[in-house]
């Protein structure tokens, strides 16, 4: 039911099956194909570098929230968490040096712990908890940044330049977040945590009776998510070389839609990191592509919405009629 798992299937291999399972790649290929038809330079190195620069910070966020969605919950606070991380990192990196990264990751863990324990222990609906967490963290970001975005003083920008420097033609942060994706892939496929998350998402009652530590796992899920968000925030700070308190305001919907675009069902128990990866790439390809196609900005929302629906419709894992989609 997940990712490229088809190739590891023993015996029953069929091209059709393979296609059914991995059709989610199609949308990305189509999107990129179409845009490169409209403007060949869409696939020029420069433009790819540009896209990769945008993809990099979004990836960890999307992968993080992916896990929450697999477990059947939702987290609306990731954007705000990213904002806080971005603001603090952007403001203090000049003083603390790169230790700030560690601190911010820790911050992400804490934020996740708060969400997670409110949801798993106090049994509050994740939607509301994270919605409130969102407003709290947003306020935090505003307060710390004194209400406006600040750039790292021009003299000190060299400190963070390495993040956007090119390594093998692509910015360092891209490689970092690709590494993170692989890490997430391992968590998803190879660890008790990952497997339990899917079990909980599919049928929490049964998983619990089967001896899955539901509470622990749920908390960890949200920790994963917030940590991813924090890392994303840090990357933005390093990428933009500034602290932007509003950076996350649109990001959480971006992240969620890219997961959805990968075809993950929100009913829980299904999805995969690879799908998320494809989703993120597609989202960025769409927005870049529209710029390069010279789409009238007035039409952007409309186009994006339509493409989103179409892509999700193509990619959605067909859980069979029996599965209830909410």
């Amino acid at each position, binding site marked *: 039911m997940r990712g490229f798992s088809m190739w590891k299937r023993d015996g029953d291999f069929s091209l059709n099956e393979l*296609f059914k399972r991995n059709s989610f790649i199609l949308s990305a290929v189509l999107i990129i194909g179409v845009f490169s038809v409209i403007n*060949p330079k869409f696939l020029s190195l420069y433009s790819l*570098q540009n896209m990769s620069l945008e993809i990099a910070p979004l990836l960890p966020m999307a992968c993080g929230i992916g896990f929450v969605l697999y477990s059947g919950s939702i987290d609306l606070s990731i954007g705000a968490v990213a904002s806080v991380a971005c603001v603090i990192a952007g403001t203090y990196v000049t003083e603390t040096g790169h230790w700030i990264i560690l601190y911010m990751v820790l911050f992400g863990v804490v934020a996740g712990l708060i969400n997670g324990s409110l949801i798993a222990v106090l049994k509050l609906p994740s939607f509301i908890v994270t919605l409130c967490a969102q407003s709290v963290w947003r306020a935090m970001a505003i307060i710390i940044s004194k209400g406006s975005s600040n750039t790292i003083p021009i003299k000190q920008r060299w400190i963070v330049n390495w993040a956007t420097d090119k390594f093998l033609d692509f910015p360092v942060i891209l490689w970092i977040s690709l590494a993170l994706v692989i890490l997430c892939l391992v968590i998803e496929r190879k660890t008790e945590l990952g497997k339990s998350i899917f079990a909980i998402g599919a049928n929490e009652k049964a998983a619990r009776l089967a001896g899955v530590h539901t509470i622990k796992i749920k908390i960890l899920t949200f920790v994963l998510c917030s940590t991813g968000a924090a890392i994303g925030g840090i990357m933005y700070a390093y990428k933009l070389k500034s602290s932007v308190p509003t950076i996350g305001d649109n990001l959480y919907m971006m992240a969620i839609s890219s997961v959805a675009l990968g075809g993950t069902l929100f009913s829980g128990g299904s999805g995969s990191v690879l799908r998320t990866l494809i989703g993120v790439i597609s989202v960025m390809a769409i927005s870049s592509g529209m710029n390069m196609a010279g789409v009238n900005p007035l039409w952007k929302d409309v186009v994006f919405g339509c493409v989103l629906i179409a892509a999700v419709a193509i990619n959605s894992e067909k859980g069979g009629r029996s599965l209830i989609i909410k």
Partner: protein
Amino acid sequence: MKKFLVLMLALAMMLSLFTAASAQDDKWYLGIMVHGLENEFWAQEANGAILFAESKENVEYQVMVTDGDDNKENQAIRDFIAKHGQRAFFITDVASTANSVNFAEICEEAGVYFTMLWQHAEGLEPKDFKHFVAHMSPDDFVSGYNTAKYLFDLIGGKGKVCALYGVQGEDSAANRYAGFQAALKDYPEIEMVDMQVASWSQDQAMNFTQTWLAAHDDIAAIWAANDTMGLGAIEALKLEGKNGKVFVNGVDGIAAAFDSVAAGDMASTVANNGYLLMGYGAAYAYEAAVNGKTFDRPVIKTNAPLITAENVAEYKAMFIDGQPEYNFNDLAFPVLSDYESFEELKNK
């Protein structure tokens, strides 16, 4: 399986296109970066730039919106550069102060000329960048200061005042409020009752105003950081029949605000004059890119008149009902002569 074929087809198309080279041309491409088009003032800016572009036959333009989002902006300009290479040049209402540096660096790296409006980061100077042609803006601080000053004079320098703040985290909001506070210092008898963040929203502004009117019955004036919020406050006042009695201002100079000033509901607004800003901004960048001009005073404060009952008619005729006609070859036209006076005011 049918889908599968489609996929193959798409792949084939792509591969074929790798080889295709795009035709070389002698046109120049103007990238117009604005926050969005749902807002009237931003649209005014874009139209200003378009006015210019259409006045030159060898210029093609593309409008791109940033939604005040640094990422979108950087992505957009890189995309535009990827598309047109060195024959691109930009006029931008940069998404945020912080991002102005990134903008400059990206263009510098790509060797593309640009003019920047409104915000620019501390220590980011056109002289430090070869391709940073000029920076133009009416001063948000000044607008905030002037409008506030006008309000305070209207209420005779004393009384209760409330303030409506823009979106938290946006610079123009912060700077305008800074201007307001500076003015507040000059009027010791003005009592600052409350400030609320209405996020440029008419609805929220209306709600806050209603609540204020309920809590305090003797509010003399309400300072709003932009027109829509001002209009919201006025709607609330209308319900109480207090419109025109409690003074409200706006900033930006959108049509509705002009009407409201004319009707006597709004005390004042500021015509930021997007046409002039982006029109001439584009003109500067064009001169630098095409004719290699350089400018000795590249940081330009432009003229942003305070609109009051007296002068509303003429400005409405120019900005709203028609479009101003500018001679984009007269590059001295937009420059505001005396703006140093405000500089020390800021530092004060």
